[in-house]
């Protein structure tokens, strides 16, 4: 196949599939939550309620897109776009199958961390530009939370980088041919899972939009598709973190019998469901608990993990 055509097809699929799956996750989440809470969930529109997503999307596109007169207009408009752009940019480095990556950079993992650290601006700026106290409080919480959890998110991944000897994600997948990194890096996996939850602002870490205290947090003033962008951005983040867990700790596309892409999708879907189950199972902590948990427990654990892994790698070197 012509290489340009091939990369165009990959590019199209990498944008098209996550966006649609992100919309589909709204249905999946509601159905799974309902299942675990002994309810039915949306089951009226189409088979199994699958067309509920379509109905919701049509509805949200026809909602009035209202910008409050007291808001900082340019920043208010840019904020929802930032989260979509940064999350979609991260998808460029994810290795879906052998050779199926948009950009197989030698700093792929760092690129992912960079984009996820830029994502916080969307929330912070949305909170600030809305010029309402609930939004501002949500934005403040988001910036403190994401900054704290980003630190050990990066550190928790350095163990896998040490074992694989590369920041390139396809190399990291290839290095897990004999053993998934979740076994030697179990602590790293747990730390990354928690940091990933905090980065995507999912329950139990959804304090920036805690509806019982802050109305809707940073997106209180948003309506229509601008609100929808935050919503889809959050689900895109869930898919991204699940895909990254698969790549970094569960051998990516590797697995017997089935084609690589099927393994990748199955593993990613498993972690997406885990994210939803955590939402159904866990209550929300207090904000000071969240911060002290991050700095006093998770950061030292991440440093310890890095230290021990480094020592073992150094000792095992011939």
């Amino acid at each position, binding site marked *: 196949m012509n290489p340009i055509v091939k990369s165009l097809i990959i590019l199209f699929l990498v944008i098209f599939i996550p966006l649609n799956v992100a919309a589909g996750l709204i249905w999946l989440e509601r159905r799974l939550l309902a299942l675990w809470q002994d309810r039915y969930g949306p089951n009226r529109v189409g088979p199994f309620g699958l067309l509920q997503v379509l109905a919701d999307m049509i509805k949200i596109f026809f909602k009035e897109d209202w910008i409050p007169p007291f808001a*900082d207009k340019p920043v208010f408009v840019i904020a929802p776009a930032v989260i979509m752009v940064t999350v979609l940019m991260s998808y460029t480095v994810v290795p879906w199958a052998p050779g199926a990556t948009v950009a197989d950079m030698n700093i792929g993992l760092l690129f992912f961390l960079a984009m996820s650290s830029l994502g*916080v601006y969307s929330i912070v*700026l949305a909170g600030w530009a809305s010029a309402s106290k609930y939004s501002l409080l949500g934005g403040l919480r988001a910036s403190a939370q994401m*900054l704290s959890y980003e630190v050990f998110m990066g550190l928790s991944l350095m163990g896998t980088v040490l074992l694989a000897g590369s920041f390139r994600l396809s190399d990291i997948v290839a290095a897990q041919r004999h053993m998934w990194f979740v076994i030697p890096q179990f602590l790293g996996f747990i730390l990354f899972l928690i940091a990933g939850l905090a980065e995507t602002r999912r329950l139990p870490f959804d304090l920036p939009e805690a509806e019982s205290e802050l109305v809707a947090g940073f997106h209180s003033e948003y309506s229509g598709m601008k609100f929808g962008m935050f919503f889809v951005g959050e689900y895109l983040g869930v898919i991204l973190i699940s895909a990254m867990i698969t790549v970094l700790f569960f051998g990516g596309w590797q697995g017997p019998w089935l084609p690589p892409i099927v393994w990748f999708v199955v593993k990613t879907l498993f972690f997406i469901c885990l994210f939803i189950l955590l939402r159904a199972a866990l209550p929300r902590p207090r904000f000071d608990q969240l911060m002290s948990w991050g700095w006093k427990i998770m950061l030292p654990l991440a440093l310890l993990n890095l230290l021990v892994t480094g020592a073992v790698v150094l000792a095992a070197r011939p």
Partner: protein
Amino acid sequence: MNILFYVASAVAIIATFLMLTRMNAVHALLYLIVSLLAVALVFYTLGAPFVAALEIIIYAGAIMVLFVFVVMMLNLGRAAEAQEREWQRPSLWVGPSVLAVVLIAEVIYVLTHADTRMFGAEVVGPHQVAQSLFGPYLIGVELASMLLLGGLVGAFHLGRRLEEKR
């Protein structure tokens, strides 16, 4: 790569200029973030992908978030913008402009007279950066880390004293 380099540099310069002339602190910070991202791209085109990634992660992704955080806490309004307008009188621009023009003249002189091979010299990946950081420059790295530790202890001390007073 040449075109990318020039476009990124132009964006960096324009964004920095706009950052200086904004009256609203948050808008100024946003332009500074754009400028940092553009500088990261400049690094990337010059063959230093590792430095480019760190530039985004540390400067744009962490330090600037703290700046935005503080500005949000201060809750600057119309009064602050008016004060800023008061401070940024046109006569204030004379001194910095003269100095900047001197620097630009020097850069143009260097670019036109010396043999500077700028592009594609070689790609410096994470391995090379690590080897030079923890090889010949080890003492510098250790000194910097001690300085940061000192800063951390100092910040902790200041925060703790306020806590006890309450």
